[in-house]
């Protein structure tokens, strides 16, 4: 006896959404994957290489593309999910433009937005030419050219941790988790690309929580001669030689320190995606004080929305690395299937 396969709509075509869609499709479910951009892939599309092993980001992109390319998946791009509502027959989904979809279950995978570095005005992003973000740096790695705005080769680069994270002044008290290890990865890549360029990481705490992160940190010192200074940069300016000057306290020396830099890289953190926040507001999802979606239980129910048939996957619930995002998406699929079979 053949039955009509159940339909799951996945909101968001980043890492979590692609993995969830792929896993469901493989099990025979009919999946609609809704992506707001031109293509699925999410923030990973901007990345050149991944921590901790510096493998090409393209390897993970190809895996996910294959996953989301399953014939049971219908991908709708340039569209956002505006609202979801449970009703006795399933979940009613309203898409941007007003179209409606019926699904048996919905997985919310709306992800994160990168912190807008303009908001930390004292760091001069958008004001000084050679202040860039960690994402801009990945674009330089992609182009294979690392240079100052005037085309000259930098001789000293500083990476500033915690930009937009752990900072009450921008209403983000949370830690974005991945920026520390990203900084270490990028510091190594700079040293490999430009062996004569000095690299300094300015950190408050080094949060090397994942497997092989601490090893990468060690390697950065042992093999690549990356420098670390413990202190939060308070401001940046430009001197008469058109070089950036930063002010920081070297908290381990216990004295204020100033340093000239050719390029300053701001390690921008993660915030709840604006599109996800709108969906949450319209659909009655709870948001935590960090504005990410608050699940049914932090320990054993972190895919549960509290609304029947609606589940959470990935960084819409908290900052996560790719490994954890994929695991979280698979767990969301397990919860969804359990619900659909009940």
């Amino acid at each position, binding site marked *: 006896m053949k039955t009509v396969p159940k339909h799951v709509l996945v909101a968001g075509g980043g890492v979590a959404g692609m993995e969830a869609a792929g896993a469901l499709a493989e099990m025979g479910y009919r999946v609609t994957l809704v992506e707001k951009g031109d293509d699925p892939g999410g923030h990973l599309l901007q990345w050149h290489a991944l921590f901790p092993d510096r493998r090409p980001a393209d390897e993970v992109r190809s895996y996910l593309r294959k996953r989301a390319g399953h014939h049971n998946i219908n991908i709708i791009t340039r569209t956002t999910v505006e609202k979801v509502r449970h009703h006795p027959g399933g979940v009613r989904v309203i898409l941007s433009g007003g179209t409606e979809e019926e699904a048996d279950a919905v997985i919310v995978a709306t992800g994160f937005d990168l912190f807008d570095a303009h908001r930390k005005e*004292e760091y001069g992003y958008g004001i000084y030419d050679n202040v860039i973000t960690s994402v801009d740096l990945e674009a330089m790695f992609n182009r294979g050219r690392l240079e100052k705005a005037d085309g000259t080769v930098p001789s000293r680069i500083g990476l500033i941790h915690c930009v937009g994270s752990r900072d009450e002044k921008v209403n983000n008290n949370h830690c974005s988790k991945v920026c520390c290890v990203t900084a270490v990865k990028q510091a190594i890549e700079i040293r490999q690309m430009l062996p004569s360029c000095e690299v300094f990481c300015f950190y*408050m705490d080094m949060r090397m929580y994942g497997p092989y992160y601490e090893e990468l940190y060690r390697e950065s010192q042992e093999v690549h001669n990356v420098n670390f200074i413990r*202190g939060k940069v308070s401001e940046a300016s430009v001197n008469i030689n058109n070089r950036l000057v930063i*002010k920081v306290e070297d908290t381990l020396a216990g004295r204020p320190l100033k340093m000239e830099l050719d390029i300053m890289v701001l390690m921008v953190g993660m915030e709840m995606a604006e599109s996800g926040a709108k969906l949450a507001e319209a659909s009655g999802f709870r948001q935590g004080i960090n504005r990410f979606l608050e699940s049914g239980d932090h320990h054993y129910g972190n895919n549960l929305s509290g609304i029947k048939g609606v589940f959470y996957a990935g960084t819409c619930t908290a900052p996560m690395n790719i490994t954890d995002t994929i695991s979280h998406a698979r767990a969301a699929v397990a919860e969804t299937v359990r619900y659909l079979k009940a």
Partner: protein
Amino acid sequence: MMSATGANKFGFAINRSRMIDYDSSDRKVREYITSREPSFRLCFACGGCTATCTAGQHTSFNLRRMNTYIRRGEIEPLREEVTRCMLCGKCLLVCPRGVNTRNVVAVAAEAIRKLERNEL
């Protein structure tokens, strides 16, 4: 008998211990400050205040270190520290934890004055 080689000058003179003796430290100042400016407890020692500090460019004033001294009950270095701040408040603008830094210094100075008058 004194040694002709000067060995009497060598070694084990009694020095004041450099150790922070947490158990015999004076917590009155810390308690005074914490009760009047509870945001004091939020400092995570990033040093942003000291980086931007006007007084710290020219004197040894260091608000981050001062906060640590207060927390550890180290009162001696505090007496001088509190006199160096000009209360300009730039540190308030950078503190990522929202500590009312300027008021911490003002309240610390007050605590020291009271301590000296045995009013604490």
